[in-house]
């Protein structure tokens, strides 16, 4: 008998059909950002590329909620238009990781033996090189740009997805109910489709949800370092970078876009945690 029971807070709230305030805020924030990415015009009519040197480096005000940059461009509009860029880059990275990684993990988990060994060794290597370094290498080879950074980040995610998918497939394959299916005469392919996959995909989905936030951070970092789309494209990371030169006086140039990144990632992680329990660490 254990002395601790699971924290009843969230489960209790869900059962009572009310939601914890943190989760509500996270959903609202993410919804707003997704809306901004799809229809930026909804929030601000200003042109993100329109320079207005007269009003350069103005602090946040009613006319310019996020202030203006060194060319007089409205920062709020730039952030809004950058949302689509950054979010789609993160999405591309995630999709690459999921497609390649899950496929690899499935193969390794179901084939076993030699194939499994090979895949495990390969993921070992990919996981041994710090993710940022891998993406930097890809960027060095492929060149700069939003899509290329997305690919670079996506590549680093493959190993993690392969590992967790394989672990889940193995866990379910060894479960008594899967063995029971074999015993009653179900063919191997049918066991895979009807028992293994439906029970394995849950945790993988949870992992993917958390990885979205991580991808966004990675893409923004590459953008900050200058490997994303060249100016004047308002990708979030590069917005923070370009604000550095004026940072002492014009604090809003780097602070606010960065705040938006942090808020998006935080909201995404909060939702991921609510949907699927604790965030996962790549299994060994």
């Amino acid at each position, binding site marked *: *008998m*254990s*002395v*601790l*029971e699971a924290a*009843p807070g969230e*489960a*209790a709230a*869900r*059962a*009572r059909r009310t939601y914890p305030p943190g989760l509500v805020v996270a959903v609202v924030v993410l919804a707003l950002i997704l809306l901004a990415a799809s229809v930026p015009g909804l929030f601000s009519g200003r042109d993100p590329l329109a320079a207005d040197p007269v009003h350069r480096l103005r602090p946040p005000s009613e006319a310019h909620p996020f202030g203006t940059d060194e060319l007089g461009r409205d920062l709020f509009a730039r952030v809004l238009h950058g949302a689509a860029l950054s979010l789609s880059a993160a999405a591309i990275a995630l999709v690459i990781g999921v497609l390649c990684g899950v496929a690899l993990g499935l193969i390794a988990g179901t084939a076993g033996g030699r194939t499994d060994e090979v895949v495990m060794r390969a993921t070992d290597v990919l996981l041994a090189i710090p993710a940022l370094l891998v993406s930097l290498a890809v960027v060095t080879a492929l060149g700069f740009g939003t899509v290329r950074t997305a690919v670079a980040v996506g590549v680093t995610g493959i190993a993690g997805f392969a590992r967790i998918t394989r672990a889940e497939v193995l866990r379910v394959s060894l*479960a*008594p*109910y*899967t*063995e*029971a*299916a*074999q*015993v*009653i*005469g*179900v*063919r191997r392919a*049918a066991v895979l489709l*009807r*028992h293994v996959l*439906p*029970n394995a995909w849950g945790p993988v989905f949870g992992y993917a949800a958390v990885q979205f936030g991580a991808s966004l951070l990675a893409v923004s970092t590459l953008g900050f370092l200058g490997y994303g789309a060249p100016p004047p494209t308002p990708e979030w990371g590069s917005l923070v970078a370009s604000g550095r030169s004026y940072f002492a006086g014009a604090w809003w140039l780097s602070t606010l876009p960065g705040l938006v990144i942090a808020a998006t990632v935080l909201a995404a992680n909060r939702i991921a945690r609510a949907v699927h329990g604790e965030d996962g660490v790549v299994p060994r």
Partner: protein
Amino acid sequence: MTREPQPLLAVQGLSVCYRTPSGPLRAVRDVDLQLAAGETLAVVGESGSGKSTLAAALIGLLPVGGYREAGSVRFDGTDLTALPERQLRALRGAAIGFVPQDPSASLNPVRRVGRQVADVLLIHGRADRRSAGARAVELLDQAGVPDPALRAGQYPHELSGGLCQRVLIAIALAARPALIIADEPTSALDVTVQRRILDHLETLARDSGTALLLITHDLGVAADRAHRVVVMSAGAVVETGPVRRVLRAPVHPYSRRLIESAPSLATRSLVSGSPVAGPQPEREGEGEGRGALLVADRLVRDYPAPGRSRHLRAVDGVSVRIDRGETLALVGESGSGKTSVARMVGRLLEPTEGRIRFDGVDITTARGTALRALRRRIQFVQQNPYTSLDPRHTVEQIVAEPLRAFRLGDRRERAARAGELLAQVALPAALLRRRPAELSGGQRQRVALARALILRPDLVICDEPVSALDVSVQDQILRLLVSLQRELGVSYLFISHDLAVVRQIAHRTGVLRAGRLVETGATEDILTSPTDPYTKELVDAIPGSRPRD
């Protein structure tokens, strides 16, 4: 004019609740309990009876989310519920000891065993840093740990389950408490080990005059070891009294039912003397071979051993024969190889050596189509009903899956057959739409049984099918198995560690020890007059066979 001495422990009107998402759940309701010094009281109940909650409540260690709703717990005159935590801590371990349920998991895996015993002494000031170590070794010795000085320096994973439990007993007794609460102290152990531990505990308690509160689900254990017994059901006490009286003349209907279902106390077998061979009339006294369904000849199973190139021989030359319509039981403790034998017979595992003939055909190396065809005739019911059913499928899908695997019938026919099978295992048709999570352990096991029987196999291998179930549910499942055998003429290979259960259901029994078959024969013969010394030990260890005076 004599006055009743004050009881050591007096519980009055205790109610304990748990906070749950759907409101407070009362786990213990209005319990009254008394325990005199030096007495042994057994609290008997099935799962959900509240007995474990009661044990935790007595020392104020309710799991998070649990709280005392009402009532008092007086220990030696003091009301524990009114004490501040600090004083309560001083009592725990020193005045009241606790022996927990799962021995291997109840010891800190990264601390040496001797240190864990010494900790208790240090906490309550019974020894200082220098003498604690030596005293701990003495305590281990008293608790029956062989080679105590060596063992004290070992880690829990280096000790067997039985040894771990002795260490826990040493911990509980270290500060010489007046009362020991033992929460199912032997449920996780083999039956022979169980007996030795309980013997020892009994002796220790008697010698030091310690009162013992024994929580158990096994009425037989209560019968053997306790002076008085308290029967609990759904959180309330239904009956209490001297153990002899309660067993012989139970008052409450629940106690009566519990006593009747307890396998260790039951004296009748559920099966008649000879096996059923389907609708044909029985033939008594036929020689070997005529009715033989499955014959396994000198099965051997080796597993690669860690480190060296030698092998671990789990099964060593075991031969069994199962006749049509009969139940053969294989009994053994952990490590006896009984599961390996079952898996080999069911062709889930390949024997290293030996042959298996099923209905005259050699199936030892059957593969592919032949093996699949075999699956229709040999089926399996696994031990743990909580993990043997796919949590995402409905009961109908689970039960009909064999039909689907062999492409028998269309969807409607399969659904209809599933319904028929559910009725045969005495489950309501409404359950077809449900998922396993909504079913109880007994219901799940019935579903597993229905799934195994839907193809009308000749042989069903049951691997400890009732070990994870409550006693009353156990009884129902066993009766179900017997009636299905009578109806369908199916044979069973019944694996169990519990001789008492086996007595009720098996025509013939084989006793396994360390991979070898030490004795085999008619069940009644083996139980009443065992020839092998190990078998004798097993039979003696069945709780409930020697009621306490």
